[in-house]
């Protein structure tokens, strides 16, 4: 199992603040690909942040690759995340002061992954971005930026890739291309992939589709209340 979550509870700080996550059980097998969808504010991004170790849950087990990350110290978590988790944000994925090539290189350096420059160029070539290697993010379109972010996430060969609404800033055509690329690269690297999206076209590209309120009891309750 890449992910194993049991009895996860999470609420924002402050007395009386509502519970944001309440997950009894969630598991994800290696190399599997799923799409999660749900209402805004239902805790999907918080869920990703907990899985990636940026947020600590109030209680519960969050096991990634057999390691309970809630027990890790901050620097151990940083190291764990750098090696095992690739992350793609909704937008502004790239470091502004770095060009496309360097944005990929820095991720490999942080993860202490062995690489050669040729390898980065080959990966850029495979997505038709080699000629943009020296360009800074502001010189690239959003679609191009997302493609660089995908290469950055997959090149360190992580066990898990998390993509939080990676196509929300793109047109439908580019969105489909990005998702295809993401699925292909994740398969090549044997990485498990979880994508969060609101777009039905994107969700339908995945065999396994999970409604977030089905795994998050807190989200279910909030949706019930709102209804």
């Amino acid at each position, binding site marked *: 199992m890449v992910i194993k979550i049991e009895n996860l509870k999470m609420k924002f700080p402050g007395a009386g603040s509502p519970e944001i996550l309440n997950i009894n059980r969630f598991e994800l097998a290696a190399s599997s690909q799923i799409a999660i969808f749900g209402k805004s504010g239902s805790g999907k991004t918080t869920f990703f942040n907990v899985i990636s170790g940026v947020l600590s849950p109030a209680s519960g087990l969050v096991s990634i690759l057999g390691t309970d990350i809630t027990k890790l110290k901050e620097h151990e978590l940083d190291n764990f*995340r750098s090696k095992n988790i690739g992350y793609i944000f909704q937008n502004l994925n790239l470091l502004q002061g770095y060009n496309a090539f360097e944005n990929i290189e820095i991720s490999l350096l942080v993860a202490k992954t062995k690489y050669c420059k040729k390898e980065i160029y080959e990966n850029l070539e495979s997505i038709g971005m080699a000629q943009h290697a020296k360009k800074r993010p502001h010189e690239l379109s959003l679609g191009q930026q997302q493609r660089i972010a995908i290469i950055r996430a997959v090149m360190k060969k992580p066990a898990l890739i998390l993509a939080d609404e990676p196509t929300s800033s793109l047109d439908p055509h580019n969105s489909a291309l990005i998702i295809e690329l993401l699925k292909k690269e994740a398969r090549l690297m044997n990485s498990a992939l979880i994508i969060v999206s609101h777009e039905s076209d994107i969700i339908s590209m995945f065999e396994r589709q999970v409604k977030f309120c089905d795994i998050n009891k807190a989200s279910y309750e909030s949706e019930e209340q709102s209804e």
Partner: protein
Amino acid sequence: MKLYMMMISKSIKQHYISSILTIFCVALSTALLFSTISLRQQTHENFTQTGIGIDAVLGPKGSPLQIVLNAVYHLEEMPGKIKWDYYKKVAADPLVISAVPFCTGHSYAGFRVNAIDADFFENFEYAPCRKFSFSESGGGRGRAFSTHGEAVIGSSVALELQMNIGSEFSPVCGVNQGDPTHDDRIKVVGILAATATPYDKAIYIPLKTFYSLSGHSNDVAAMTIDESHREISGAYLKLKKIRENTLHPGITGLKYNINQSPNAQLVIPNETLPKLFNIIGWVDSVLLMISITVGIMSMLFLFSTLFNSTQEKKRDIALIRFLGAPRKLVFMTVIGESLTLAISGLALGLALSRLIVSIAADQINIETGIRLSASYISPGEIRLIPAILLIGAIAGLIPAINAYKTNIIKHLKPLS
């Protein structure tokens, strides 16, 4: 290490205009501070060391400082004359090892013309254990004067006036513009090897030639042969010592006796010169204060540059942290950036300070004959290097803590 260097260089390049301005600002303040310290230290050392070559100056009554400046640095004018007989009496004292009489008050083309005993070139030590020479390897040539109408010139005089062996000149009776020129033609027979002291900037003629210059009154002319009426400006004295740099205790009594007499006074340069530095010490202090103030301002500028750049890069910092970079690395990157800017400014400032010292050294050499070295780095400057680097690191401390505390979640919220 590669990651660390990459992050520092990227951060500097990302804000290259403010980075360049910061480096320039640190360089200017460092240059000001270093050149002030270097000039202060070298001037002090040179002035005191030049005086060390002679133990004392026997001079007329008047300002002791004026006597030292005139006898050693060829500046100012002697406040009077002393009798030859009195000089002979002092020279004969058992505590006086050697004495070289001289007359000042003449010049040529802006350089002092001093009449002196020929013993000056043989036995006089212009610095500890250093005697004059005419060796060609040191830029000298010719010989000491041996008869009437001959002269020896310092190396700077030869260079600046393009004078050589056989050149002739007529001395001016005085040291001010408009003073009358003697008709006599005096021939250069020797050029002293460079000493890097004010002695390079003077012309030396025999005492008898000095007295017999045409235009001098009959009384002065008579001094050529009549020693009983002869007067001199002063004499360089080499005194008895009990060990290196420690004069014989009896010198105090000798000095007292001479100073009590109505004829002369004994001036010890090593006692008098510190008074000069005390007088001009406030200029040093003011310059130092200005330099330190500019230094503090440049460090505040460095702090402000780093703080603003850290604030602007919060999302990038959060992103790097999300990629797995530990807080410690982010902290050290800002400190590294601060040190890089400080080191660059320091290096540029050091180079700039050598340029300032070099320009100032030329001017000081023209004015006093003292040669300062642009390549000399004083102990004060060496001590300042780690201090500047430490302050550079401290300037980066708050921005580094700011980067260290960056909240990943807060700064990675999606932007619409």
